[in-house]
């Protein structure tokens, strides 16, 4: 039965008015008196040894206040979320390992002087040979990027369920394929920006777009040799993040320059710097061997995932873990063997990017399923239904227990029903139409992985003496709408107008640690923590109210800004109740902690279908329609949820069609948004989104995560549609016109 809610399930945008008026302050919009502007000097080549660095000329330029190098750093000069192996600044005698390494920093009175001073720094270096692909990096005798590691393997993982040999023995047909996925750039419109300054206690304040204030705070503190409580980190409203702002970039630099100069410092990356420096979606090479019976029952799945970590560890070990744990996806396959490696190279560092390894492994699997369907002569939708997980069956990961009935069949039916309504207008004779489908079982709140230890989420709520509410959480608003969702949850709990709830986000001085705003987790984790905190606060109010109104606690409830007595015998407005509490010395601030249950990691189901038109003479592909059905649990804010699915779908479309942050021998072929092509409005297909509400037992109001999930299926649906249209699979996307043309005309790919 559908539960009636006060404001959950409604559309609400708390930060909308300021955003449409251009009033929202992003980090780069902050101007402080006496503020300096900073610029970085980046590595001249992908791999080399820094022999000397001469800053004298730069320092002598009028208007330059400081030029700093690694010598000026008092701490470890190393940071990283898993292994602290990435330098804040590369020191003399050390190696720079990729194009995004920073060698020196300039702070000057304005940005023009800072830019000029950067060009005056003289660097003497020895260029070293580089490792630019899996083969080079894994070859016997290859030099090691990190001397403390035995090989260039950053991390490895393995999952074995059943017995893979007997699984293949049970199969009638075995297919083996290799899928290569490109490096993806987040391309948020706001490049990284940070402002730092000293406050009255001599502590450094950092205002910057970042996804996890507590992580940044402590890791920067140790890298620069400060106690963590001497830094205050505030995550500003981010102009898009998608995982790309989950790792430290210029934040440590801005703080360092404030420490050296004593003055406020602003640092903003150019687009080109942003593209070189922040971690990308890992390029991957995925080998799949799959066995099935003639009637379409998959018996064995063996897969190897290689991901290019780039020069430093970053988050690659976790990305690999997640890629492997989502590899088999929403299917029941009795015998599986999954393994993989994250590999160091001198390419750009890779890290978190919407989906965290899941888009790579899910896309590869879904492409191979369509090829298998073809070999078996079974409809691709039917093949997926035959193998869909059922409750009680073992998923392809031990992290997931199916605590609710899987919904894949229904999602597939709904998706295909909408897709088939797509009108078949006049397609020229040289064009071929095709429809494709792809499914996934996205994992969310993967930071609940025991290995991460970041699972806990704190949120606080306070009622002021006038009854108004403030929520404190360290979630970050990066466009997804968490500020609105938290306001809605508090408003739901206390039955007040969500517009009247204030939400303070992401300030290490005032908001509890909430873990990263990644992994589609904040609605689920902060939402749960806020519900718990609200319940505690309500309980206290009810206890006080029962004495005030002289009625039993069980008779009291909240509605429309008041505390009411059941059966209509009296009421007290929250404003009066809170005031009474204030004078009675009752604490009206509650903080709660939510930790995901490690027995089962958050998961859901999604199905996407695409309709494409392929110009067989040019290889040009037009995506005509994209339909996604998502088991969302409960949409607390349907418009925002749909926005995540559509936006994620378009990012995935870009990944499938045009986006490839291409490197050739270490050089970046696509250094700016003129070459690295994300979709424009003219690339938008007809979009349909189906939100299937199927309340999740442990989610707030039944809500699940949603932020990343469409990025796990849209690319595969599009590539499968091209396959259905042409009979050829693009196994190394993006599906550029040339690749599609070569496939349809049978031209072998040139090296």
């Amino acid at each position, binding site marked *: 039965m559908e539960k009636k809610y006060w404001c959950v399930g409604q559309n609400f945008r708390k930060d909308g008015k300021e955003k449409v008026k251009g009033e929202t302050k992003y980090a780069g919009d902050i101007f402080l008196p006496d503020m300096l502007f900073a610029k970085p000097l980046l590595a001249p080549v992908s791999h080399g040894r820094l022999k000397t660095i001469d800053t004298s000329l730069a320092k002598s330029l009028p208007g330059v206040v400081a030029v700093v190098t690694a010598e000026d750093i008092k701490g470890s000069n190393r940071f990283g979320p898993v292994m602290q192996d990435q330098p804040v600044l590369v020191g003399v005698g050390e190696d720079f390992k990729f194009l995004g390494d920073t060698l020196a920093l300039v702070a000057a009175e304005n940005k023009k002087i800072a830019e000029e001073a950067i060009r005056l720094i003289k660097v003497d270096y020895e260029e070293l040979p580089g490792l630019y692909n899996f083969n080079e990096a894994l070859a016997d005798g290859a030099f090691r990027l990190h001397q403390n590691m035995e090989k260039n393997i950053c991390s490895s993982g393995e999952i074995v369920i059943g017995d893979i040999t007997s699984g293949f023995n049970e199969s009638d047909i075995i297919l083996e394929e290799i899928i290569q996925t490109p490096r993806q750039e987040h391309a948020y419109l706001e490049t990284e920006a940070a402002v730092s300054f000293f406050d009255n206690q001599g502590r450094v304040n950092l205002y910057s777009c970042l996804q996890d204030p507590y992580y940044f705070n402590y890791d920067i503190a140790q890298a620069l040799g400060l106690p963590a409580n001497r830094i205050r980190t505030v995550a500003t409203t981010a102009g898009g993040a998608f995982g790309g702002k989950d790792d430290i970039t210029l934040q440590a630099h801005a703080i360092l320059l404030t420490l050296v100069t004593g003055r406020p410092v602003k640092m903003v990356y150019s687009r080109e710097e942003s593209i070189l420096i922040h971690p990308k979606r890992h390029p991957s090479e995925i080998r799949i061997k799959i066995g099935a019976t003639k009637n379409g029952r998959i018996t064995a799945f063996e897969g190897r995932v290689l991901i290019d970590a780039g020069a430093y560890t970053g988050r690659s070990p976790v990305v690999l873990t997640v890629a492997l744990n989502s590899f088999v996806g929403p299917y029941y396959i009795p015998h599986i063997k999954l393994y993989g490696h994250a590999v160091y190279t001198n390419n750009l560092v890779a890290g978190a990017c919407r989906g965290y390894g899941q888009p790579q492994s899910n896309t590869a699997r879904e492409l191979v399923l369509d090829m298998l369907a073809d070999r078996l002569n079974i409809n691709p939708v039917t093949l997926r239904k035959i193998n869909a997980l059922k409750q009680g069956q073992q998923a392809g990961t031990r992290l997931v227990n199916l605590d609710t009935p899987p919904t894949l069949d229904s999602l597939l039916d709904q998706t295909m029903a909408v897709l088939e309504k797509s009108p078949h207008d006049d397609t020229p004779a040289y064009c071929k139409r095709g429809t494709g489908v792809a499914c996934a079982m996205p994992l969310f709140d993967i930071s609940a992985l025991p290995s991460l230890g970041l699972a806990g989420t704190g949120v606080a709520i306070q009622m002021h003496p006038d009854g108004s509410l403030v929520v404190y959480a360290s979630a970050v608003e990066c466009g997804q709408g968490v500020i609105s969702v938290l306001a809605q949850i508090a408003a739901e709990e206390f039955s007040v107008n969500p517009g009247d709830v204030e939400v303070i986000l992401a300030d290490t001085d005032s908001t509890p640690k909430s873990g990263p705003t990644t992994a589609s987790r904040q609605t689920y984790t902060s939402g749960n923590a806020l519900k718990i905190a609200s319940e505690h606060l309500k309980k206290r109010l009810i206890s006080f109210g029962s004495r005030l109104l002289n009625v039993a606690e069980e008779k009291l409830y909240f509605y429309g800004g008041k505390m009411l007595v059941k059966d209509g015998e009296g009421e007290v407005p929250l404003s009066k109740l809170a005031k009474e509490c204030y004078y009675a010395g009752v604490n009206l601030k509650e903080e709660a902690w939510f930790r995901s249950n490690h027995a089962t990691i958050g998961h859901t189901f999604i199905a996407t279908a695409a309709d494409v038109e392929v110009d067989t003479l040019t290889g040009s592909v037009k995506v005509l329609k994209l339909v996604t059905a998502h088991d969302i649990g409960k949409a607390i804010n349907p418009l925002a949820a749909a926005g995540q699915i559509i936006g994620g779908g378009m990012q995935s479309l870009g990944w499938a069609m045009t986006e490839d942050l291409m490197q*050739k021998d270490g050089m970046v072929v696509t250094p700016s948004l003129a070459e690295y092509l994300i*979709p424009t409005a*003219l*690339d938008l297909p007809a979009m349909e989104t189906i939100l299937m509400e199927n309340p999740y037992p442990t989610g707030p109001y039944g809500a699940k995560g949603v932020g990343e999930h469409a990025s796990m299926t849209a690319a595969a649906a599009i590539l499968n549609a091209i396959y259905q249209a042409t009979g050829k699979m693009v196994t190394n996307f993006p599906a*550029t*016109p040339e690749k599609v043309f070569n496939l349809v005309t049978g031209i072998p790919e040139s090296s």
Partner: protein
Amino acid sequence: MHWEAYHCVESIEEALQLLDEYAGASRVIAGGTDLVIQLKNHQRRVKALVSLSSIKALRYIEQDGETIRIGALSTHNELAKSDLLMEKAKALSLAARAVGSPQIRNIGTVGGNIVNAQPAADTAIALLALGAKAKIVSSTGERVEVLENLFKGIGESSVNPAKEIVTEFIFPAFFRSAFQRLALRKAFTLPIINVAVALLIDQKNICREARIAIGPVSTVPFRAKKAEAILNNEIISEKKLVLAAAEAMREINPRDSLLRGSAMYRRAMVKVLLERALRDAVVVK
């Protein structure tokens, strides 16, 4: 510093005088959509800029008998919106629509696009096919050049922006023309290949003049003269169009490009796009 002085002038005379005063250290800027980026990137250096954007007299698109005249400061958007061009010079109309973004088309000018001398410049390809001539003035006089003569290399024009100003493009109104373009993204990106064709077909269906331009397959916008020769003075037929397109494919010499694709692919695309453009031009009147 990118540049030390910026002058907005109201007339050509004023501009030429300033250019003379700077004696080579300044250069003309029109919409600036390419030049400002090049200056920011330190790809070009200049002491002073002389902005022509306020010279309204150089913004017109008009028919003068059998000739179309376009003021060199006409923006891409003005070209794209012109009914006259859509009717009489469709290749240029479509090419102007393909340039950059709406914002770029609002300030980028056709003159700037030509002097910037990129081998893939959409309007350059169209104007080359349309047989345009450019009127160029300097303090020492005026010259008229066929468009081919303006392109010397990638980003290198024979118009000296420290001395000269392109004021006008002139081309015949009698061509049937068409434009085709292939790119990685549906908008806001440079072409993999772009082609423009202009045909003069008489009442007996004989092609009196064929002009074919292709980019970016050379260091300059490329004229496919051998392909044109296949059509010239021949009765137009599907077979001829296909032969001409195939000939164009042979006479170009594109390079392998990691961004734009292999030479082999782009050669093949020249044929496909040319066939489409030629068919379009033949059908349309």
